[in-house]
Structures are given as structure tokens and as C-alpha cells.
């Protein structure tokens, strides 16, 4: 209805008139007069340097700014970096391959693929008007907007942490009247959305990895009851920490614990236990489900190292380690489950 209501329509749409509003010079007061009580109730403050060349009027985008989804337990956003970046606790090879096959699966070719210093640059990919990659590649799929992205892998700050940075290095828009490709400015938000896509893809990849690692038969291993560094009761084994980390959830589920959360950085599983009276049926089906000597509530299980051995420490919701006698009572069931095959 632009004719009827719009810029120059019958009913004037005045929402963009403000662009034409002008400030006038402040009043000069003749020498013999004075103008004391001129308190300015509507001070218009000056803006900073960087803000000088920001867009305004129609071409300011009101869309909500993108957020980096550092929600996985082993991911942390790097808020300082000018370019969207995250720190991630993961082995480099697996990361590098996951990122590459995110693009290759969709047939995206790379203009630069430098395995040595871990830098990838994509060919043109199709993006929507907000600059988000549509997940399809190929020259012919691009119709209106296209962009190029650079993804780099580098060292993180904390121990065995890597950093992934994503940057949109080029963006073009097809201009219908001149029907030529015309450059577009790059915004932090466009690269942030691409980084989020990488995080999502990495997440599905880890689930894949965990599933096949689960299927791989994890040989049982013996656990002894001993103490950890600050002599709390703990289960100790020689098996490698990563294997124990993989096996632990299966053992916990078998003991009817419910895994609520996990933190790979702290190597801790957050679990809850619901104490249920062994109902009539349980005894009927003679499940040897002997209830654990624990009240229902929240618990934590942490995998740490004692010297060269791996230790498993059980803690309650508040983080205080369980005392020795409970561990002694738990030990038989735990030992049996850790050592059997499945």
C-alpha cells in the first residue's frame, strides 16, 4: 500500500524523516546580554570514532545479533577475539577431519587446504540474505548471495585446548539492474552463524564417535578399592583414563543411576539415583536388583589420576566424597560390572 501509505503516499509514512533532521548552531549571545539558565534538558551526546561510519536509516539491520553457541561441556567462547572463535577440548585430528567433511559432504571445494598450519578457505558457497550458508555448494546453486569463508585451527590457552576461528573473507550480491556481482560488507554476525553450524556438525560427529566406540567391545578390567591423593575412598585401576571414561556411563546405567550431565573438562559425570522399594514385580522376575545403599538424590563420579593409575571417585550432590563404608558396600557390584564384557 505504498501509494496510499508510504514515503510519498497519501498518508505520509514519517518513520524515516529523522534522517533529514538537522541540528542548528548553538545560540550566540550578544556581549551585553547573558543567558544563564540555559540548562539543556535534551543533551545529544557525541558518538565514538568507530561508530562514525556505522550504517543508519534503512540499511541498519534490526535483526538480533548472532550468539556463539558455546554450550557443549568442552567448548568455551573466546570473547576477546575480533573474529568469531571458540576454545575446544578435542584432539586436533578429529576436529580437522570433522570440519573438512562438513563441507565435503555438501560438495564444497576448498580454494586453500593447508593441513600444516591448519587453515581452510572455501570456494564460493550459496548463502541466504542474512549471510548464513544454505548448506549447499556447487556453482549452479548460487543465485542471489554468495560468500567465501576461512576456517583456522590453532592452539588454545588451557592445557590440551584448541581454538577454531571462522571468518567470512568475501561476500557478493547479484545486482539485478546491473546484473553484475557486487561486493557486500562483511559482518561479525555472518561468520558467527557459520561457526555455530560447525559446532552443531562437530556435536553430531561426537555422538557418532561415542556410538561406535560404545559398540567396540570394551574389555572388562579389574578395579581395587584404594584411596586417591587426598585419601578419599576411590576405585583404582591401571586401565587408561579415556577407556574408563567410556566404560563408566554403561556401569552407572546398569546400577540404575540416571546420567543427567557430563563435563569432559573436569572428567565428571553428574548422575541422580532414585531409591525404589524393590516392588512385588522385581521379586517376581527375580531380578537380582539389590537396591544400592544410597539415598535418592544427586551424585557425581569423577575420573582422575593417582600417580600413573586411574582413580574413580564418587561424590554426593554437594561435592563431598562418599565415605569409606559406603564405598565398601558398593564395591562388589561396581567391580562385577566393570569387569564384565558388555
Amino acid at each position, binding site marked *: 500500500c505504498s501509494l496510499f501509505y508510504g514515503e510519498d503516499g497519501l498518508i505520509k509514512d514519517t518513520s524515516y524523516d529523522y534522517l533529514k533532521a538537522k541540528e542548528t548552531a548553538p545560540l550566540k549571545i550578544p556581549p551585553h546580554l547573558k543567558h544563564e*539558565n540555559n540548562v539543556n534538558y535534551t*543533551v545529544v551526546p557525541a558518538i565514538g570514532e568507530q561508530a562514525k561510519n556505522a550504517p543508519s536509516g534503512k540499511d541498519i539491520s534490526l535483526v538480533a545479533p548472532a550468539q556463539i553457541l558455546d554450550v557443549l561441556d568442552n567448548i568455551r567462547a573466546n570473547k576477546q577475539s575480533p573474529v568469531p572463535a571458540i576454545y575446544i577440548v578435542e584432539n586436533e585430528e578429529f576436529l580437522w577431519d570433522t570440519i573438512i567433511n562438513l563441507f565435503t559432504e555438501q560438495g564444497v571445494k576448498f580454494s586453500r587446504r593447508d593441513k600444516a598450519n591448519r587453515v581452510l578457505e572455501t570456494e564460493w558457497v550459496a548463502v541466504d540474505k542474512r549471510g548464513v550458508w544454505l548448506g549447499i555448494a556447487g556453482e549452479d546453486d548460487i543465485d542471489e548471495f554468495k560468500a567465501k569463508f576461512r576456517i583456522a585451527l590453532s592452539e588454545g590457552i588451557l592445557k590440551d585446548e584448541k581454538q577454531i576461528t571462522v571468518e567470512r573473507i568475501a561476500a557478493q550480491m547479484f545486482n539485478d539492474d546491473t546484473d553484475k556481482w557486487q561486493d557486500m560488507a562483511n559482518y561479525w554476525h555472518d561468520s558467527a552463524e557459520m561457526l555455530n553450524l560447525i559446532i552443531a556438525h562437530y556435536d553430531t560427529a561426537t555422538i557418532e564417535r561415542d556410538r561406535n566406540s560404545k559398540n567396540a567391545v570394551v574389555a572388562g578390567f579389574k578395579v581395587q578399592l584404594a584411596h586417591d591423593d587426598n585419601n578419599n575412598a576411590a576405585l583404582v585401576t591401571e586401565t587408561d583414563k579415556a577407556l574408563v571414561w567410556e566404560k563408566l556411563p554403561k556401569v552407572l546405567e546398569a546400577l540404575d543411576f540416571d546420567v543427567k550431565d557430563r563435563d569432559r573438562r573436569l572428567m565428571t559425570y553428574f548422575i541422580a539415583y532414585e531409591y525404589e522399594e524393590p516392588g512385588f514385580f522385581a521379586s517376581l522376575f527375580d531380578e537380582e536388583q539389590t537396591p544400592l545403599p544410597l539415598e535418592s538424590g544427586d551424585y557425581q563420579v569423577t575420573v582422575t589420576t593417582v600417580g600413573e593409575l586411574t582413580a574413580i571417585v564418587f561424590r554426593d550432590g554437594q561435592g563431598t566424597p562418599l565415605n569409606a563404608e559406603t564405598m565398601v558396600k558398593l564395591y562388589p557390584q561396581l567391580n562385577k560390572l566393570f569387569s564384565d564384557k558388555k
Partner: protein
Amino acid sequence: CQSNRATTTEAQRINNAFKLFERAQQSMLSGNYRSAVQYLERLDSLYPFGAYSHRAQLNLIFSYYKLNDYASGIAAADRFIRQNPRHKDLEYAYYMKGLINYSSEKGFGKELFSAPLSERDASTARQAFDDFAELVRLFPNSHYAKDARQRMIYLRNRLAEYELHVANYYMRREAYQAAVSRAKYVVDHYPKTPSVPYALKMMEIAYNLLELPDLAENARQVLLLNYPGFKE
């Protein structure tokens, strides 16, 4: 005391969070902001902390603005500011608060049925001005600072025009002392606005009508000094 068995582990929750946000984005792109709001509200309630809720809350502000639901838009912005005092996108929330107040005065309905903009209630305009002022004060280098400042100039001129509109009424009413103080209010408190010369002219005329020639002369000289060629 039903123990909430959060069966889904952290990993599974991420996937449906992505799907949920994807659906919200689709409806926003297609302009169906009503359903976008529902998805975003659910996303915020399911994942009440961390990056999800920030993303959901910011998009909620935008969707309410698009739905012209100004009250909920401002409430969403205030909630985001209160809950995330040190978030990097705080400036967006401040900017949107100002923009929502600014546009609640305009719009098709208002233009058709209401009195001219500068002749009606100035309190929402004043509120929009204060919101933008806070944005520029807190984030002088913000991406939105330049646009906000430009809108502030427009709003200040509109507030000055409102004062003159009232002063004109009092002139017609022959309540010259009232007209003079309103005109003086513009000169004193709304500097650097295009209404200042008209205010000075009105002060001169009113002082003359009040038979205070020397006060009129002072006003005339200030006007002459600043706007030599000014004609009513």
C-alpha cells in the same frame, strides 16, 4: 517432588535446541512473527541459561517489535538488560527499547486518525529520547550509536515543536506571559533546534504586547545576531 528425570543427556538437548531455533528463524524469515514468538518462548524456558537463552531473548525483542506489541517488546528488552548486565549485545537491547518507544508514536493508524505528530502527547517521545541517550552514553562506539543519535536530534526537534505549538495556543489566547515562558523554555532547554528562531520571534512579539520594550529589544538582538535573515 516428582524427581525430574532429565533423561536427555546434554548432547541430545543440543540437537533439539538447534532444531527449535531453526524453526523460529524460518517463521521470522517468512514474517510469521506470532509463531516465532512461541518457539522462542519455549526455547528460553527449556534452556534457561547460557547462549541459548540470550539468543532466544534477543530474537524475542525483535519479534515483538515486528508484531507492534510494544509493551511486551520493552518488557523483553528490560528483562535481558537486567539478567545479563555484562553481555556483549546489551547495546542491541537498549537500542530496540528506544526504537520501540519511537515507533509507538508513528505507524499507519496513528497517521490516519491522530493529530499531527508534534501536536500530541510528548511523553513517549521523551522516553524514546532517554532510551537512546542511555545507549549512546553507555556504548558510544556501538554499531547503533550513529542511528540512535540521529533519531535523538529528530525527537528533540519534535519536542521543541510541541512547546511552540502550546506557546502559539497561548498567544492566540492572549495569555502572553504563558506564551513567553513556553517560548523561553525552548530557547533555554531545547538549544540547537530549528524552533529556536521562531521562539525568539515569539518572545519579542509577546514582550511588546506586554509593553516591556527593553525585554523585547533583548530578544530581538539575540535573534538578529543568530538569524539575521529570519522572517516569520
